């Protein structure tokens, strides 16, 4: 809550005009929107996405979780994480003893003036140690993320917005979320707020609250584990928009906004979805 004061201070000093960004108020407003839509459903359940509101799909999912399809990715990720770089250093030199730090990402890097997702941080770590960056969406990078997410399980998301530049990035991500895009003319909100819980063909539409808690995800449709920005691209393609580059400023800011909306919720990644 301490940043609320800071926001107020920033608003008072920087924005003299009508621009009012209050991420915390907006997070609470989003929570109450889903509270109204799904009375009786514990909001914390939305860390399980659509399975919070669809009993039949939940049963299948719980069954699948007996032998989680992302387990191999965690093991692979662990090995990759613990393999030293050619210069003798390792990921632990970047992230510390405990690899369970995913609940703090994305974070706003004040020095760089931009949002850093966990995937960007992993690749930065590699490049600072003379290694090549890994492909963003799937493969080894998603496996390392899966291992780190697994070690972060049980922590609550704690995304911080502590400066005017960070608020600007949050605002940019928010604008992306609420903007109609593509020939189909959809916002993220069109499906995930206005029509959340309804069916598109045989798929029930998931809520945005909790959207960020369970990544990376093994998706049945993909048959492998992938990062959240792969899903962003998929959503954009579905509305007939040209998708953005992975880890583009647009997607990093969107992930920053979306993850902030899940602040305080439990991280339970990696996850599995249909």
């Amino acid at each position, binding site marked *: 809550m301490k940043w609320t004061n800071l926001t107020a201070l920033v608003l008072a000093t920087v924005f003299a005009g009508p621009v009012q960004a209050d991420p915390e108020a907006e997070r609470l407003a989003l929570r109450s929107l889903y509270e109204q*839509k*799904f*009375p*009786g*459903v514990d909001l914390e359940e939305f860390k399980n996405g659509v399975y919070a*509101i*669809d*009993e039949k799909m939940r049963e299948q999912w719980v069954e699948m979780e007996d032998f989680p399809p992302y387990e191999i990715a965690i093991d692979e990720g662990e090995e990759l994480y613990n393999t030293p770089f050619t210069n003798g250093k390792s990921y632990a030199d970047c992230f510390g003893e405990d690899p369970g730090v995913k609940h703090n990402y994305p974070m706003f890097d004040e020095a760089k003036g931009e949002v850093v997702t966990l995937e960007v941080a992993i690749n930065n770590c590699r490049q600072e140690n003379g290694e090549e960056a890994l492909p963003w969406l799937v493969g080894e990078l998603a496996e390392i993320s899966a291992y780190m997410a697994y070690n972060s399980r049980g922590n609550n998301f704690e995304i911080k917005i502590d400066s005017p530049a960070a608020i600007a990035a949050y605002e940019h991500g928010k604008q992306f979320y609420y903007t109609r895009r593509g*020939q*189909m*003319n*959809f916002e993220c909100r*069109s*499906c995930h707020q*206005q*029509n*959340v*819980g*309804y*069916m*598109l*063909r*045989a798929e029930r*539409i998931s809520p945005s609250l909790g959207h960020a808690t369970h990544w990376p995800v093994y998706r049945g449709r993909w048959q492998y584990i992938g990062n959240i920005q792969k899903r962003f691209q998929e959503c954009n393609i579905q509305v007939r928009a040209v998708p953005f580059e992975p880890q583009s400023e647009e997607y990093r800011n969107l992930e920053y906004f979306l993850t902030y909306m899940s602040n305080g919720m439990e991280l339970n990644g990696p996850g599995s979805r249909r």
Partner: protein
Amino acid sequence: MGSFQLKHISVIAGLAASLMLVTGLVTAQDSGAENSVNPELAKRIEAGRVVLEDRKKGNCLSCHLVIGGELPGNAGPPLIAMKARWPDRAALKSQIYDPNLRNPDTIMPPYGRHRMLTDTELDVLVDFIQSL
């Protein structure tokens, strides 16, 4: 499953009743009047059904229930008794062409305004929907 489905439940209930009525009427008429169906119109209705079902065209089943349509979604109201609900062709066509005119906040895509369907496709789609 929760009250969020209430959005369309009353519509469905009301329409189910009128549907039974309409089906009854149609069945009663069909026996004698089958040959009198305008073959040109029948062709257009069939073409419209294809536009409605095609995932690269209308893909209407994604959100709307149509009797006989496979795997319908329920984000939009069911397309039942449409002639009664949308007797005016032009109004129905306009609603598909640009639903934002009536409801700026709707999720339904502007099929005509954004050139997702051609004018001919819109026309036969209206024919099919009015036959529902």
